């Protein structure tokens, strides 16, 4: 895992200071630096490109409106923004949860600290409805399998595997301890692999074809 270099942190702080003073270019630079990772996190977390775009917009509007209490002593701006994006997504989940069947609701309502204690299923009882987002078939299969992982496991998996954040950063973003990050990551990886294997058994021809394509591309890339 790679940590954000100190120079990046200082650059973000400088841009943030200029943004608060009304510097248009500083906002543009901050946006360019952070929109991509935030959007990709939100896509995987919410399963919707529309929601992901709304979340990125909400994050930057909150930054502009000075509604966020960013403390540089507690970590990098990038990690802080992931936490803000996650909170916006959780709020949307909360709104959608009102329309779920009762059994799914009860499972979702167990709070974060309870979830590990009660051996909560790693699979989301009410996965988001997914549109096709990725052109590559194999990547799309993995993304859809990832969307079936329960949200609090999905958070950890995405932030670690896709965003290269450290255990400490993830613990801070998800408000859990490092041991929980470790255990959730381990369980989420195992479940994701199991889901992919089930998919593979369900559609062996399709998977074989796409895996071959994937392997061929990797060979070509090497």
């Amino acid at each position, binding site marked *: 895992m790679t940590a954000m270099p100190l120079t990046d942190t200082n650059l973000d702080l400088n841009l943030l*200071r200029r943004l608060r003073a009304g510097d248009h270019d500083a906002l543009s630079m901050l*946006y360019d630096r952070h929109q991509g990772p935030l959007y*990709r996190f939100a896509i995987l977390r919410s399963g919707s490109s529309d929601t992901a775009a709304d979340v990125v917009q909400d994050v930057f509007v909150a930054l*502009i409106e000075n509604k966020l209490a960013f403390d540089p*002593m507690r970590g990098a701006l990038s990690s802080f923004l992931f936490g803000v994006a996650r909170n916006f997504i959780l709020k949307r989940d909360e709104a959608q949860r009102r329309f779920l069947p009762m059994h799914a609701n009860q499972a979702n309502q167990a709070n974060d600290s309870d979830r590990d204690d009660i051996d909560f299923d790693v699979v989301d009882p009410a996965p988001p409805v997914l549109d096709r987002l990725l052109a*590559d078939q194999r990547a799309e299969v993995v993304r859809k399998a990832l969307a079936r992982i329960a949200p609090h496991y999905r958070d950890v998996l995405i932030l670690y595997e*896709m965003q290269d954040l450290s255990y400490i950063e993830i613990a801070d973003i998800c408000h859990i301890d490092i041991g929980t990050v470790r255990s959730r990551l381990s*369980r989420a990886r195992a479940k994701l692999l199991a889901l992919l294997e089930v998919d593979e058994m369900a559609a062996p021809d399709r998977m074989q074809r796409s895996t071959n394509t994937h392997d061929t591309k990797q060979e070509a890339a090497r």
Partner: protein
Amino acid sequence: MNLDQHDNNQLDRELDHLRAQLLMHNTPANVHAAVMKRFAKKHSAGPFSFRFGNVGQWLAPGTALAASVAMSAWMLLSPLAAITPAITNDARLSRGNNAPFFALQSLEQIALEPNPRLIETQIPKMMLANMGMAVSPEMIGESLRAEMLVSAAGQPLALRFTAQ
């Protein structure tokens, strides 16, 4: 629960592939436009800010410093100091004795504030008790006068007690 090396490698390949595919995706351009428009609207204040533009960011620290000096001078020369000698003998609570501020936010956050201001306020002793300070039960309903450094948005940044 733990995956063996083969499983781990297989999963890593799948995730690497997904990550590579995702890298082609960025936030739609209309979001950038909406964010910049929002920013322009927030900062399209009156003709003063238009004319002076970013000069404000250079003037702000100097203005804040000048305001602090003026406030300190006013407190030192205030008639209140002269007519309440008994109270001002208390080094911790006297007005204009350069009593230290207690930071309520991190120093970095305070330093980031472009337009901090100093206000006078009353702090209930109940609040001090909640912060872990020893307060006599008989005095729990009383208040203390204090000066508070607040951000432009009104968020408390630092606090110091003044004379009663």
